[in-house]
């Protein structure tokens, strides 16, 4: 059974249809990528999945339960967690505390047990800290656990976001451009961590990413979204060869020339791609 089924998701902002009738099925234990030019609606789709936006139409079934109409914190408790495209750490909290906040839905201590500091509460707190440190070790940050999140270098902040999201013990993690702004060295390290998320922790990974090397190297399936609509889905090789995808990224002319040339090795989409100029597109 699929871990997540999003059916016919539509989200409008006024007249703008940000996500248009997108259907996506995710098998447990897979790594899938959602790609598309900037502004295609990928992040909006993530926001719908995590409950930050309510979809106008469509339904989401996660692990056998419908998700629409649940609050974001309830969805997190069900096992979907995420990172943010523009890093949203709790800047004035320590690295360890950031992960502990991520574990909020897994720490149960009620109000009175906290005020009375019962043995059960203390025990739970100790265990939580231990687990948080495991997660930090997983992303190679345990030695920086007492630093403030805002004082971490950029690459560390990205990895801390992953550790924080893992705090909720998710079945599925949504990573919104986890390697954006990283140098090749950092990107390689981050890619390894993403791979380990699935291989070591058994977490299903959904990735929004612009770096095609990352996307092509680790995803098992790729969905391409353009102007809010899913235009293609398939394995990396299929997507590489798909004329719709090439058109979305490089414009119509490029797609036609690649078709006529019928190359055995279709051109790699560039590593960092933006939406092409409108003029280029209309050619």
């Amino acid at each position, binding site marked *: 059974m699929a871990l997540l089924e999003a059916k016919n998701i539509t989200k409008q902002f006024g007249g703008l249809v940000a996500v248009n009738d997108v259907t996506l099925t995710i098998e447990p234990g897979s790594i899938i990528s959602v790609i598309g030019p900037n502004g295609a609606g990928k992040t909006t789709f993530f926001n719908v999945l995590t409950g930050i936006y309510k979809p106008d139409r469509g339904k989401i079934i996660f692990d056998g339960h419908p998700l629409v109409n649940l609050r974001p914190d309830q969805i997190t408790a069900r096992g979907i967690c995420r990172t943010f495209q523009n890093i949203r*750490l*709790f*800047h*004035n909290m320590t690295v360890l*505390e950031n992960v502990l906040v991520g574990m*909020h839905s897994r720490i149960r201590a009620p109000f009175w047990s906290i005020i009375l500091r019962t043995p059960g509460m203390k025990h739970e707190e100790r265990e*939580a800290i231990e687990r948080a440190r495991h997660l930090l070790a997983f992303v*190679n940050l345990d030695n920086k656990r007492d630093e*403030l999140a805002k004082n971490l*270098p950029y690459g560390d902040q990205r990895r801390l976001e992953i550790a924080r999201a893992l705090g909720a013990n998710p079945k599925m993690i949504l990573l919104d451009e986890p390697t954006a702004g990283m140098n090749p060295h950092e990107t390689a390290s981050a890619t390894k961590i993403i791979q380990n998320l699935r291989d070591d922790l058994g977490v299903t990974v959904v990735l929004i990413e612009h770096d095609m090397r990352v996307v092509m190297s680790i995803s098992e399936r790729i969905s391409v979204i353009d102007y809010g609509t899913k235009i293609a889905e398939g394995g990396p090789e299929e997507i590489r060869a798909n004329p719709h995808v090439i058109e979305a990224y490089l414009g119509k002319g490029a797609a036609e020339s690649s078709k006529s040339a019928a190359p055995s090795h279709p051109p790699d989409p560039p590593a960092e791609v933006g939406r092409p100029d409108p003029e280029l597109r209309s050619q």
Partner: protein
Amino acid sequence: MARTDTQPSNPEGFLNMLRAEAGRGMIPYLLVTAYALIVTTLLLIDPATSLRTDILFVLFLGVMLTLYKVPLAAGYKLVMAIALLGIAMPYFGTLNPFYMDVATQVGMFVVLALGLNIVVGMAGLLDLGYVAFYAVGAYLWAIFSTDQAANIIPRLADSFPLAPEWFFIFLFLGLIVGGFTGVLLGLPVLRLRGDYLAIVTLGFGEVIRVLATNLDRPVNITNGAQGIKSIGRPPLFFEPWVQALGVPLDRSQLYQLYFYFLVLVVVVVMIVVVYRLNNSRIGRAWASIREDETAAIAMGVPLVRMKLLAFAVGASFAGTMGVIFASKQLFINPPTFDLIRSINILAMVILGGMGSIPGAVLGATLVTLLNLQLLPRVARELSVLDVPSWLDPTQYQRMLFGMLLILMTVFRPEGLLPEDRRRQELHGQDESAMPDTLLESEQQQADVTEPDVDIQT
């Protein structure tokens, strides 16, 4: 958090470290003890109200700050605190009731500042109507400990005013009613942030005050603008014991001591409660809401519940203190709970350092001392000078206070005793006290220019 000490590399270094340890070990204890003894003795030799006593009193309270700041054994700190606040201060208070009253009021404001600190400092919800909860607690006890309550429940008219023993039940009722009022305020403002929240809470504070002024018709609940007098005092259950011991104290002195210790106990309990909440999933959830609401909710923090909890806990502190305040003052009226009082409490929190528990205590102490004792003293001393009446310093007290606040926020915006996390932010790194924005932009620049060598997999 474990602090890693540097390991000595050779035996000689180890000896030196031991010696340094011993030196560091003994001297602070001697110094602090001597400081405390000298100040206390001087204070007790001549307890009459004067400039000298004022200064000594501040120094006396400074011992507490020293105890907090200097790293000493916890047991020693505890013994000193009990000796100073539990014995020396009450004894001094029986010699000079004015300082006893100041100390009690300091304690009351400490609790209020601790409560507001939860809402504003920890959860980041700016509340400008905090005094409303104080009013609710105060009116609660005022109404039921006088025959005012008979107007509300005529059927039980004979049982009002309630017996003094009810006071302790009302301490808890104040907690509950205050918390409930906090939730009432919290519900409509859940979606609001920043400025909008501030305006709504400001309005709420005014609503409560205006209600207190106008709820004398059709049923006289609050006795309107005249206020309520002859509010009940707590029971002096220990009076026979004191007399049996032959302690020469009259009733007013006994009440003073009573309130002092009552407030002291509440202060200690509240500090423990806030500290524990702050170091739990609840405190972390509050901080995360303060930092980034969207990220907090995406991480599984139930925003609504946590915000309401912050409002409720903060308000319940004020509710309890309101009950004590009413029974201490014997008289309350609506102007007691005006906006300036809310702002005063907010100033305490900001002065001490938002979100910091020791900061709230220090801020409350300083502002209360300034208002009750130091600024009037400065004014009185200055009025000895032959200044024209339009320059009468007693009229400029509030201005001095305002100027102090401005200086504070300009030169030490993080507060006097900032929260651990913020202190770390300023001194944990090599950077000295630089404004946050500067630090951040530098950080970003550094990220852009130099490749990160931190990541080794």
